[in-house]
């Protein structure tokens, strides 16, 4: 039992690495961090995946987070939407009057970078939320 307990964290980590759709990493750079979060319909995990990401400061000292989205499908385009939510060092969400879900069309097997610049220099953490495109019609 004790041996199993010792193995469990490793097994969980391995499962997290190998399970499809669970490759949602947190990207760090000094005090800045960013991550991509799938929300809504869980089938999004079969449609797109995150690739490389980076978070750093612009020349005007505002954090910028960029992550590449890849369409996992071989034969059809992926229609998704994304928005960025920024938090300060205390974990308080920073208001953005222009926050909006951005519709994105990814060609089959194609990828595009999505990028968000923080609305305030107090921002230290960015969460980019991605979900299947579900427009208001």
């Amino acid at each position, binding site marked *: 039992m004790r041996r199993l307990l010792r193995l469990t964290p490793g097994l969980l980590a391995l499962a997290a690495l190998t399970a499809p759709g669970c490759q949602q990493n947190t990207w760090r750079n000094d005090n800045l961090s960013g991550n991509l979060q799938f929300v809504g319909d869980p089938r999004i995990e079969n449609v797109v995946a995150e690739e490389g990401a980076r978070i750093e400061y*612009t020349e*005007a000292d505002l954090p910028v987070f960029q992550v590449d989205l890849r369409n996992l499908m071989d034969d059809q385009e992926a229609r998704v939407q994304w928005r960025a939510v920024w938090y300060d060092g205390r974990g308080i969400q920073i208001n*953005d009057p*222009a926050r*909006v*879900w951005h519709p994105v069309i990814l060609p089959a097997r194609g990828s595009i970078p999505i990028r*968000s610049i923080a609305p*305030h*220099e107090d921002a230290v953490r960015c969460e980019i939320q991605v979900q299947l495109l579900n427009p208001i019609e």
Partner: protein
Amino acid sequence: MNLPIHHAMKPGLPFVLGLLVLLGGGACSSSTTYGDPEGVETIDDTFGSTDLLMIAQKMAESFTSTNVWEEERPTIVFGGIRNRTRQHIDTTNITDTIRTRLIQSGKFTVLAGGQGISEIQQEVDYQQSGAVDQAAAVELGKQLGARYVLYGRFTEIKKEDSDTRDRWYKFTLNAVDVQTRVIIWAEEKTFRKTTEKPLLGW
């Protein structure tokens, strides 16, 4: 038993009338719900809320992340946005959101212009009318002047055939140095909206 035809029809009349009442009632009732103000809106290919917010975010992100200013906290004022599309679009709605985001960023001194100036003048006139204690009145001649003016243009290219209508939009914003006339910053946001026409109607 064979009933005459008019006997067989009789029970149907109240049913039809009831159905008409139900349908009529349904047509007169409405249903309202709250929606996500940040949600993607694709009701048609005309300018919408998603477009407004995407433009405002792109402009504000670009404006706040550049470092072309000579001052640490530049003084700016919003000029006009010319609407050169064929739609009736309140472009101040776009600049309002950009202005709010710039003010909340804390990186700029944003001066009132247009509507704000007339509101200020009205208050100054009242303060000078004799009704206000001059010890509490604002001092005249202390307003700031803007170093940079933001102005821009919104255009569209519309194409259509029998099956599709396509609108390509471009929003351009510039910042000009009042002292030198040099445009020191510019940004564009383009997007395309396409509508498949229905087989009937339109």
